[in-house]
């Protein structure tokens, strides 16, 4: 294991925006100058089943998959998917779940993924907030940019 590589796994159910969230994180990490790899399974997962996506960044990333037991962060979008994914987390790794977000304050119902990214961003000081905001703009259509700003800030507790 390369200790300089940060491993993030984002998990949830098909249709929740798991893959989009991992796209944003990966894009932000590229903007911050890191080597980045990201991997997930497509296909069957689109039909409401479990989905998870791995994002790794650091000076040099080799495998695109986070080895089980080595995730620094596990970000879960559906509470019932915590146990499905917990095995990827390293001992002492950080688990982020919807319960840590004031869901009633989400500007849009589907914004949970962006809110959790806001929460995650607080724990990743090596990616500056402007990289996150640029990545959010690059990965979402323009009509969502304003609400994403608010949702991201909500996740950051701002």
């Amino acid at each position, binding site marked *: 294991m390369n200790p300089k590589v940060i491993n993030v796994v984002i998990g949830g159910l098909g249709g929740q925006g798991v893959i989009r969230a991992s796209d944003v994180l990966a894009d932000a990490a590229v903007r911050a100058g890191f*080597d980045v790899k990201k991997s997930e399974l497509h296909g*069957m997962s689109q*039909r409401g089943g479990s989905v998870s996506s791995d994002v790794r960044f650091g000076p040099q990333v080799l*495998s*695109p998959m986070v080895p089980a037991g080595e995730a620094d962060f596990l970000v879960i979008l559906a509470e019932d998917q915590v146990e499905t994914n917990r095995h990827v987390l390293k001992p002492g790794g950080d688990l982020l779940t919807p319960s840590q977000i004031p869901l009633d304050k989400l500007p849009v119902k589907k914004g949970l993924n962006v809110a959790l990214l806001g929460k995650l961003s607080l724990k990743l000081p090596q990616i500056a907030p402007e990289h996150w905001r640029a990545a959010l703009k690059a990965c979402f259509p323009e009509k969502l940019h304003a609400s994403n700003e608010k949702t991201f800030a909500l996740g950051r507790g701002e």
Partner: protein
Amino acid sequence: MPATENTQRILISGDEAVSLAALHSGVALGAGYPGTPSTEILETFAERGGRAQWCPNEKVALEVAIGASFAGARAIATMKHVGLNVAADPLFTVAYTGVSGALIIISADDPGLASSQNEQDNRRYAVAAGVPMFEPADSQEAYDFLREAVAFSEKWKTPVLFRVTTRVCHAKTLVTPRPPDPAVPAPAYTKDIRSRVMVPAFAKPAHLRLRKTLADIAAWNNTSALNRLIPGGKSLGIIASGIAFAHAREAAPSASFLKLGLTHPLPEQLITDFVKSVDRAIVIEEGDPFLADAIRALGLNVESKPPMFRFGELNVNRVRRILANDTSPEPLPPPGKPPGLCEGCGHRAVFETLRDLGCVVSGDIGCYTLGVLPPFGAVDTCVCMGASIGVALGMRHVLPPEKSAKIVSVIGDSTFMHSGLTGLVEMIYNPPQNGHTVIILDNSTTAMTGHQENPGTGRNLLHDPTGRVVFENLIRGLGINDVHIIDPRPGDPALGELITSCLGNGRLNVIIARRPCILAAARIREYDRRNAARAAATCPCEHTPDTQP
């Protein structure tokens, strides 16, 4: 994520990297059939301005690509691993004919069966057909190798099998593109009967030429830049290709590596020298022991993975186990939530009805294979694209009438276009004594792979209007008179009544259960609106193409 097309590094999937390389290499035509994990190659090629098309199936796609190559243009054919089974017929003989313009056949394998009916290792096809094979390990290599493959194909006048896997296709890694090829030869056909007409008199010398070319490539491969030596410790030497290389580098950072990029024909001298340079040599590869068997056949002492690692994908932890020769049982990850038919999906009503009628359902490949899961449990067989019809007919032929009376075939619209027609012809030609009923689940899209068009939708890859195969006209034209079209509405008894009447009439019946995919319906309406508006703008006097008969 919008990828800029300059020479800065961009984070893209292997599929996108292949399409970008194809564009930069002047590929004139991409042809394929959708299939995870290959689908995005042609989609992103077309988005970037390349000419791409979905074909009825992989065989036709490869034939179209062969034609483009014979005419001097550069062409790619894309498919998932099982698609190459369908395209195997042209594959084996285009190896004999050779090519004019570059011909790259992209096979996207699915080790671990993320979304497939088997986990076959298509590297075997390279050997069986006698076609050189490239195996990239990440998006940068997917880009670089595709561009190399184009030059290689034209240099050696051979098709290239470009073998990628799920984690190469769908993983996103950084790519620095190169400037596009400056001059791509314009397509031109040169008559060359002896090379292009594979009658025995011409095919015999063609086979000799093929083996000579492969021998020359094998020698050339010993010094090819497609393979890389990464010096490390002498105690452990790892031979790897494709995604397994990335896992192995992480699992054993201090080992020496021979990373193979052109894996058929193998660089025998290079491998021999490497194996002899280390104390312990081991092959790390996903799927079959393809490299290990070939290297052992050279008389070299290399280790292969224990048999348990033939199944499923590799990852860093599994490679660590292989290196430690640890064959203790692997921890099983907790089962996730399985996928299911969407709420509001038209297929649900069909499978509920078939379940309640106690039908034996000969199923097929698509979203609707999920009809096998609870609460339906209403798929009894699923083998390959189109098999629903032939398999059901075979069952009806041998079972006594009272046991076969409730057998039905269920096939989706895209699968019907892919491989269902010959099944229907068989049904007419060799009808079961008590008739048969085929249900076409027409959701007006190729849903499972992400809503691609097919010949039944009347829209092309870019969702623009094109010729449409009207199923009911086609089927009646074949000579089947009992063709019924029904909207499978939830709770509507009409569907059950129709199926019951078909199963009881002793004739050949086709039921078209037509309801647009719930996930695609809004998009389909939008395409139709857009296309109608365009047609009205270009020629207000003409009617727009019918979308319903």
